[in-house]
């Protein structure tokens, strides 16, 4: 009897504790003033400064709709969104990685983009940017950051190995990787030939998907089913596996730490890396760093992966109209005395590709750095990273499979088959 009463009490308390989740967004301030919150990972440096500047500009001109930025580190963004949304304290405007789009849509986090705004976005943004922030047929919000993958190479290391021009096929890429790798007498790698990983989550997947794209393959179908366990996928993974077996590629080397000091000859990385390399390498950047398209198996073929971020409105926001009004202004207003939008400029200043087609075209006319050209070009042909529910899990399964090949020398065909089995369309 007493136990039953305790259980009843616990359930009541539980319901009380979770009832907070019924709220959401921010309330109106005093005097009919609306305060919107914007949660993003633009937490420091030029990304924070640029966004803060635009928000301050908006707040000055719109005293009745005030926007307040809330920032966390990227690694904490999804967790913060999850916890706050569940606790009924989600931000009115969410800035999120496109890969999470399916999850966020399935959980009713992002509101539907109003038809008039969606029509404009579809007409004015590049296909790669749109693809990265569209789940199924649903557009999640305004595309913001756009990144494509390219091949970074150290000109000096390639030249020292007798390689005059960057590789244009897989055969040339493998040859260059084998020629440039250097090890000491103890077997320690001094210079890695080709890096096939990057920092962060699922570090082996983006370089692999870029190679898969260059071979004409796909990662997931529209229904979330695996599409990589086929000839193209096997060829791309075999290519990577052969390089690892030849010790021309090694997963224990961190390209973002060792490329700058000449410890990596070539690396498949995202375009944002340019900004970091310029800062880290200073004068050596111009003399040593080259960027080219990721070559494919045959002459003339090339591939890349595009991933993006978006800004959308929280389903639970009490001020969705005001939020869309602000987002429209943020993404459409032009920078002072310029032909590009201020958001486009803000992104380009960070070494990112502006997602808007007109901004891209404008920037391509006057690229100050020739290394940016392949990055911009890739936006026209890159495979957009799939983002349906379950895509993140599928990506992790693929990463584990790739690593069994790169680190343990497992058969690529078996690894892909196992990864395909682990993908569960939702």
């Amino acid at each position, binding site marked *: 009897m007493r136990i039953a009463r305790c259980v009843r009490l616990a359930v009541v308390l539980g319901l009380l504790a979770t009832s907070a989740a019924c709220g959401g967004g921010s309330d109106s301030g005093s005097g009919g003033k609306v305060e919107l919150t914007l949660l993003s990972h633009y937490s420091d440096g030029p990304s924070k400064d640029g966004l803060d500047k635009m928000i301050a500009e908006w707040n000055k001109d719109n005293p009745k709709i005030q926007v307040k930025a809330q920032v966390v580190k990227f690694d904490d963004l999804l967790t913060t969104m999850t916890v706050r949304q*569940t606790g009924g304290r989600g931000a009115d405007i969410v800035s999120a990685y496109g890969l999470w789009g399916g999850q966020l849509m*399935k959980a*009713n*986090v992002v509101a539907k983009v109003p038809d008039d705004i969606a029509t404009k976005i579809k007409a004015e943004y590049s296909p790669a940017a749109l693809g990265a922030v569209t789940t199924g047929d649903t557009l999640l919000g305004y595309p913001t950051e756009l990144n494509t993958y390219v091949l970074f190479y150290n000109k000096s290391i390639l030249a020292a190995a007798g390689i005059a021009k960057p590789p244009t096929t897989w055969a040339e890429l493998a040859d260059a990787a084998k020629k440039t790798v250097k090890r000491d007498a103890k077997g320690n790698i001094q210079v890695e030939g080709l890096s096939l990983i990057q920092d962060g989550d699922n570090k082996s997947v983006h370089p692999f998907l870029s190679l898969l794209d260059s071979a004409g393959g796909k990662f997931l179908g529209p229904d979330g089913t695996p599409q990589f366990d086929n000839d193209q996928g096997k060829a791309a993974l075999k290519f990577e596996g052969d390089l690892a077996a030849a010790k021309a590629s090694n997963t*224990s080397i961190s390209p973002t730490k060792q490329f700058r000091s000449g410890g990596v000859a070539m690396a498949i990385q995202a375009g944002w890396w340019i900004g970091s390399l310029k800062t880290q390498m200073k004068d050596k950047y111009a003399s040593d760093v080259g960027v080219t398209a990721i070559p494919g198996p045959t002459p003339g073929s090339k591939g890349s992966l595009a991933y993006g971020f978006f800004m959308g409105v929280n389903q639970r926001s009490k001020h969705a109209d005001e939020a869309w009004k602000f987002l429209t202004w943020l993404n459409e207003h032009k920078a002072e005395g310029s032909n590009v939008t201020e958001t486009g400029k803000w992104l380009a200043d960070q070494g990112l590709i502006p997602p808007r087609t007109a901004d891209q075209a404008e920037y391509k006319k006057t690229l100050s750095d020739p290394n940016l050209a392949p990055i911009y070009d890739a936006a026209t042909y890159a495979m957009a990273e799939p983002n349906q529910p379950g895509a*993140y899990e599928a990506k992790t399964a693929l990463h584990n499979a790739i690593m069994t090949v790169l*680190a343990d020398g497992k058969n690529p065909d078996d690894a892909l088959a196992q990864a395909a*089995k682990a993908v569960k369309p939702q």
Partner: protein
Amino acid sequence: MTTAVGRVGADGMAAAPARRVGKLHREGLAAYLFLSPALLFFCVFLILPFIFAIVLAFSDWGGFDLGTLKWAGFSNFGDVLSFDGTFVKPILVNTLLFAFGSVFLATFGSVLVAYCIDRLSFQGFWRVLYFLPVVATVVAIGNVWKMMYQPAGLINAVLNKLGVNSVGFLSDSSFALPSVTVVHAWASIGGAVLILTAGLKAIPEMYYEAAEVDGANSWHTFWSITLPLLRPALLFVLITQFIGGLQSFALIIVMTGDGGPVNATNVAAFEMYQRAFKFGAWGTASAMAMVLFVIILAITLLQLWIARRRGEETS
């Protein structure tokens, strides 16, 4: 409660049963009143989440919105315990290896260290020295060891000096789990040493004097006196270390980032975190939590049963 009963007993049979019950009731009420802040904390932060986790384990929920929670029956447990998945093998196997390995190393090391410290001068200094890793954050410990494990790190440099080729401590899937286990054990020694030292201090000196008179050597003394009388402290260390080992994942995140290479260091707690907070699969994550809870409970009960069978009163 025993003291209350004792005092009532002292009053003898002369005390009226009603008065006795009233006094007991008042004392009980006062005890619960004093306990209420702790009980409330316990309810809000342990019981309620536990109940919620049980509910989630039988549901399909993507996080964010409780309105989207759907009943899923036992399907989450089916997914989790399926041999086609990764949870049973390698994740659960890794978890047990990590826990057993770190408990074995930490217990063996802490008994040795505590026994040695007990026979040294400046005992406080040595205890502080061994306790430092417990005070240091997991992030700091993980990063320092990570640097030492690097191909060009301190440990490989020593190996190279000895003519041994570099070892990929964190990049080779055969070495990654043992490497992280060693660090976890090393970081756990300090706390265990403190408890075991207290246990050693509680052993009456007369036993050792009697052993010395009987001509027992150090090994006999340790084996026949120290170890048996240290059993309560050892049991506490074993149980807490084992539970800690089974639940640990912060060190693994710091040292390997993603439980890699190829799930080689992926453990149950880390997988739960990934499923819930990354993939939005809260049902599966909660089912994993329930499985881990049952495993921890079973192992703890087994440890207690073994200890009791060997004559240890733990209650």
